[in-house]
């Protein structure tokens, strides 16, 4: 479980995150949503330690990440996996080597065991056949799946995904969503996904946090969105006329 308490982040005189408190439970897909520039990415960077908050606490199962020493932070980071918007695979390494990388760095397995584990992870994302290819030779969706395999190679307790569906077609996005949801439940990990994708929000959002201008505006399950009277949230989620009509139709049926 990850808990943030009164988190604030400022860049010089501009306050980007304003007193955000939230709980991200394990075994659930936690989603952070919000408009571009609302502070989602800054919030995630504060969670993983790429930025230091101006004030507030980030607790990983009760351990205060902000107050930790550099060495303790490095140790805790080994319990994290992250999938970046651009997948961030190492260009000079094959798919198998990319997935083996965290194992090479931090596990005490021998080469055969490391290869075995990497292939198991690739099998979990249905990509065993691409193990000898380089990231530049596979599609964006496949790169994201490789990034997922790399992120789960060391059995992380916490999984972070920064817009995992960006640049993907709806069908591939669905595959990625199902994978992330499945992995979260299978390994009982705390997954936090930063997304704009409304299909993801409605499909796998078990704990959604809506950030509006740096503040937590709304929190709840995807099922609660239909009934929500929060104008800022509904304006964001049902931005298009088509979605507004769909919502009206669903509410009409009920």
């Amino acid at each position, binding site marked *: 479980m990850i808990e943030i308490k009164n988190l604030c982040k400022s860049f010089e005189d501009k306050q980007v995150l304003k007193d955000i408190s939230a709980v991200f439970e394990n075994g659930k897909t936690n989603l952070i949503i919000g408009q571009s520039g609302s502070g989602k990415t800054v919030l995630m960077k504060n969670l993983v330690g790429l930025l230091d908050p101006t004030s507030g606490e980030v607790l990983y199962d009760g351990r205060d990440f902000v107050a930790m020493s550099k060495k303790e932070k490095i*140790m805790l980071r080994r319990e994290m996996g992250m999938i970046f918007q651009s997948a*961030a695979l190492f260009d000079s390494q094959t798919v198998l080597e990319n997935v083996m990388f965290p194992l*090479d*760095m*931090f596990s005490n397995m021998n080469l055969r065991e490391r290869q075995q584990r990497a292939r198991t992870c690739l099998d979990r994302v249905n990509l065993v056949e691409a193990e000898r290819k380089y990231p530049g030779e596979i599609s964006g969706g496949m790169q994201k799946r490789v990034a997922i395999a790399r992120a789960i190679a060391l059995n992380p307790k916490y999984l972070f995904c920064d817009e995992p569906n960006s640049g993907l077609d709806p069908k591939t996005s669905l595959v990625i969503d199902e994978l992330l949801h499945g992995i979260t439940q299978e390994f009982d990990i705390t997954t936090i996904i930063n997304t704009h994708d409304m299909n993801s929000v409605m499909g796998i959002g078990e704990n959604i946090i809506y950030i509006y201008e740096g503040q937590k505006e709304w929190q709840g399950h995807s099922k609660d969105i239909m009934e929500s009277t929060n104008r800022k949230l509904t304006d964001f989620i049902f931005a298009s006329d088509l979605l507004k009509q769909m919502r009206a139709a669903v509410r009409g049926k009920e």
Partner: protein
Amino acid sequence: MLLSKYLNTLGRYLMLMGRTFQKPERMRMFFKEYIKEMSQLGVNSIGIVLLISFFIGAVICIQMKLNIQSPWMPRWVTGYTTREIMLLEFSSSIMCLILAGKVGSNIASEIGTMRVTQQIDALDIMGVNSACYLILPKILGLITIMPFLVIFSSATGILGAYGTAYIGHVLSPEDLTLGLQHTFNPWFVWMSIIKSLFFAFIISSVPSYFGYTVEGGSVNVGKASTDAVVSSSVLILCSDVFLTQLLS
């Protein structure tokens, strides 16, 4: 203002070097990268080093013969000056300036691209010391291979000089040999190697700094690459003055 900017850059560079010179997390991974960098930065530069050194050796020999040699000069003067120029300046300093362009831009653009595509962030989040993992093998790899490049360069330059003697008939091979052997001081070889070790550190660490600290996109990577080459070239030239004074 400008001084404060330079001091700020120097401070950030030293802090990065502090993070770089730490014990690698996995020696196995470090040695793998170290061997790879020796091959990429050093072995892959042998071709250009040999090519340039051969022709510069030949040109120096011709110029010396045409412009310095006279009835008032001893026969060995062309060979002697060719050897001294190759050994003392070309094979260490000028060759490192050339390598600053080839290797420096390569390092800055490679690390810069890794920065803008979040590959370095990925390393950091895994708990890997990204500076140590990426930069240390490059610095040590180039420092290891540089003395060999210097020796190859000097030898090829002298071979180029012999080319002008045997093929171009600019001077007789006997005169050239006499000059090459005249009052040979072995310390000059060591001096050349010691200088090149400092330059190898500059060529690898300065572009690594510019690449590692890139912010933005591809335009900034290009700018970092240019800045890296310019800065390392200027630093090589400045340190050459001090090192030459110190070692002579």
